[in-house]
């Protein structure tokens, strides 16, 4: 018997989608790498950035130089696009694999036997972790292959660290969707809640960057603690990463507890 049949099922069902997102990520990162030499060799980009107000600079990674490989990739890939992609993919996977499967009656079909709901939640969490890693790994591999061609200068250590941070960021929102799906058994509600959290997290970071009244909100934002720390340049903020992992695990456990205590939907 397979030890993780629900993980393998989840990945089989999402294989085409993940291949598409992985390919898209490779294409996007390749394009970024290809245009890096233009930005590196033209100091006007850094001068343009220096003219922006300080909060705006902070939003687009302005405290690093665009003419450096890590700074450029931080601003163009790791500050918004990759973490949001990882988060949305993870949240959607969690919502579909738990909430969607509850709605269509698959969960009832499976747990009418000896399989526990908690096992489904835990294996779904494992599948979500793998889904969240797909764009991150695709991006990292593209950097490993394409970076040396343009002297990107993003070495293995920082690349691993920023990849871990991006992955953990995705996991956090995947776990949030898992929590909502575990609580209510509705795909749409789980996707909506997790997507709303991503938007809130980004908005809180923006508002906190440009207005003093937004600072308390900013402190609630995973963008602020994980992404804005610019791990491609300054390394991973490990204490924040550990806290994010702990919150992820806690939300997964709560999802398992909540789903055990409620009626299945379908």
């Amino acid at each position, binding site marked *: 018997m397979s030890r993780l049949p629900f993980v393998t099922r989840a990945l089989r069902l999402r294989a085409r989608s993940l291949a598409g997102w992985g390919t898209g990520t490779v294409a996007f990162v390749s394009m970024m790498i290809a245009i890096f030499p233009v930005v590196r060799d033209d100091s006007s980009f850094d001068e343009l950035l220096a003219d922006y107000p300080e909060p705006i600079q902070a939003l687009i990674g302005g405290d690093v130089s665009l003419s450096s490989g890590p700074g450029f990739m931080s601003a163009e890939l790791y500050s918004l696009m990759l973490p949001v992609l990882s988060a949305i993919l993870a949240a959607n996977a969690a919502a579909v694999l738990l909430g969607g499967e509850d709605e269509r009656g698959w969960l009832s079909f499976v747990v009418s036997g*000896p399989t526990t709901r908690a096992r489904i939640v835990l294996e779904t969490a494992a599948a979500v972790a793998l889904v969240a890693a797909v764009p991150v790994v695709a991006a990292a591999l593209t950097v490993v292959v394409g970076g040396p061609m343009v002297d990107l200068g993003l070495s293995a250590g920082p690349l691993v660290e920023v990849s871990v941070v991006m992955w953990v960021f995705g996991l956090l929102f995947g776990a949030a969707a898992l929590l909502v799906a575990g609580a209510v058994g509705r795909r749409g509600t789980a996707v909506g809640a997790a997507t709303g959290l991503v938007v809130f997290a980004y908005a809180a970071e923006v508002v906190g960057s440009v207005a003093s009244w937004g600072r308390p909100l900013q402190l609630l934002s995973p963008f602020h603690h994980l992404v804005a720390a610019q791990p491609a340049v300054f390394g991973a903020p490990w204490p924040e990463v550990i806290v994010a992992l702990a919150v992820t695990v806690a939300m997964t456990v709560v999802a398992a507890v909540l789903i055990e205590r409620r009626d299945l939907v379908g």
Partner: protein
Amino acid sequence: MRCFVCDARQIAPIFQLDELTKRFGDTTAVDRVSLSVGAGEVVGLIGANGSGKTTTMRMLLGLIRPTSGSARIAGGEVARAVVREGVGYLPDDPPLEERWTVGEQLDWWELVRGPARRRAEIEEVLRVESSKRISDLSRGNRQKAAITLTLMQEPQLIVMDEPATGLDPLVRRDLWAILRAAADRGAAVFVSSHVLGDIEHVCDRVIVLRNGRAVFDGTVDELACSSRRIVSIEFGQAAPRAVFADLPGVIDVMVHGSRLDIEVMGSIDGLVKAAAGFEVVEFSTAQPTLEGGFVTLSEEVDR
């Protein structure tokens, strides 16, 4: 309500529902249902749409929690996963993986539930098309795949919600034969169906739910015989209406010359004996059916 087979054989029931109740807000979907089913029994659960059949089955399997009362399988609380080890469940609308072939679906199910001793046999009997994608199958062929999933591990408790949906008469006959054989090997079969003709042929016992309450628990014959039907007697003389009007079970007597059409409920034994005292030219009546008994009972309960 007691399990006849369990009583007769002095064995523990495979499952037992005790005062099982489920409320959704102000609506009581299942109202203090108590019953038990033993090894070797095939029990039909019948009732109108919304009578609580599916809710009862879902509580039996621990998929939804009762508002009050309890469901036990092999003496254990259904919430404990180990108790559900030998359960095979077919929901009303089985969720299958559209992109997988039937064979892939069955293979994966074996990964989850362990080796399937009866897979080949059931695939053959139901003529399951294992190499086809689920999305390419007709409703009936999807149902056959789902039935195979439910039965291939040889479960000790088989719970099926409308298993005959979409099946042609030949496959329906094969399905009931498989279920009968499973019961003969010691499984308990608990099945709901709107096809009362099938229930009539395969079930040892029927339970009728009406508005969430179990209003009948007995044999198919007992329910069928309680049906209201017309007995026509052609006499060789003027019809003796008064003799029949007050017999037990007689609801109405209509006179058509020398013929009486007598509407009767339950046994017609008294009616036959009364007719024997006269010159009878012709005596005819419809065979009592489960459907007739069910309709009669439902009307009586609603009155």
